[in-house]
């Protein structure tokens, strides 16, 4: 196949090369969306595991570590500490604030609904943490959910053509 210098395949190759070289693909919006969904699935499986008596769930621990690492990586990149990007401007700060607010609202609402339901169904077999390890797992679950929702929302609010804008400049 002949590849013309101006073809989209050539442009894709250049972009892919730059992304692989700088490791930017690790924190690209679409990758963050997929990774957040995978970690969310692991997290849900992990809390189910804990509710079934597994005090030290591998899935919950991995999801917590993954969510924390992803969140820390995104904060470091957004602040420009990796040297790949400038510090966040007003639009990026707005996206970050909106995502954090969304995550805070969703997690608070879910915890409130859970507590409310417990008031009705705790006596009828609904699971709730009883020992310190289960409470620790529940804390990890809530914190991970916050990180994942915030990162998912911020990535979702970034249009897919964002990377192309960097190339065009």
């Amino acid at each position, binding site marked *: 196949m002949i590849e013309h210098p101006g073809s989209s395949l050539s442009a894709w190759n250049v972009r892919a090369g730059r992304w692989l070289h700088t490791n930017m693909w690790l924190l690209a919006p679409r990758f963050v969306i997929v990774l957040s969904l995978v970690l969310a699935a692991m997290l849900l499986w992990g809390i189910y595991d804990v509710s079934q008596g597994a005090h030290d769930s591998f899935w919950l621990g991995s999801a917590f570590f993954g969510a924390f690492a992803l969140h820390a990586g995104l904060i470091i990149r957004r602040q420009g500490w990796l040297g790949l*990007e*400038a510090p*966040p*401007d*007003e*639009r*990026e700060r707005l996206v970050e604030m909106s995502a954090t607010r969304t995550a805070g609202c969703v997690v608070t609402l879910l915890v409130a609904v859970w507590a409310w339901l417990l008031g009705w169904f705790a006596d009828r077999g609904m699971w709730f943490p009883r020992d310190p390890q289960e409470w620790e797992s529940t804390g990890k679950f809530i914190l991970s959910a916050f990180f994942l929702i915030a990162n998912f929302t911020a990535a979702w609010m970034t*249009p897919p*053509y*964002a990377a192309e*804008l*960097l190339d*065009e*400049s």
Partner: protein
Amino acid sequence: MSRVIHNRIAMFRADAGMSRRELADAVGVNPQTIGFLERGDYKPSLELALLLAGVFSVPVELLFSFEPFPSLSQTLKETRA
């Protein structure tokens, strides 16, 4: 309140012969933000709007408007009439 704000940033930028990165550096934002502004996907703060107008040395209402800007051909027609 979510009215559409039209802008002519791309036109003024092309006229000034500036790249997105150069304009972004001039007003202190990410080049992507200039792209989002040009596509109408982001509404700037008053500070950023004034900074952009300052770079092109034009009043801010020449750069941003609630009404769609007339096309170049339409403007030419009106000028000739």
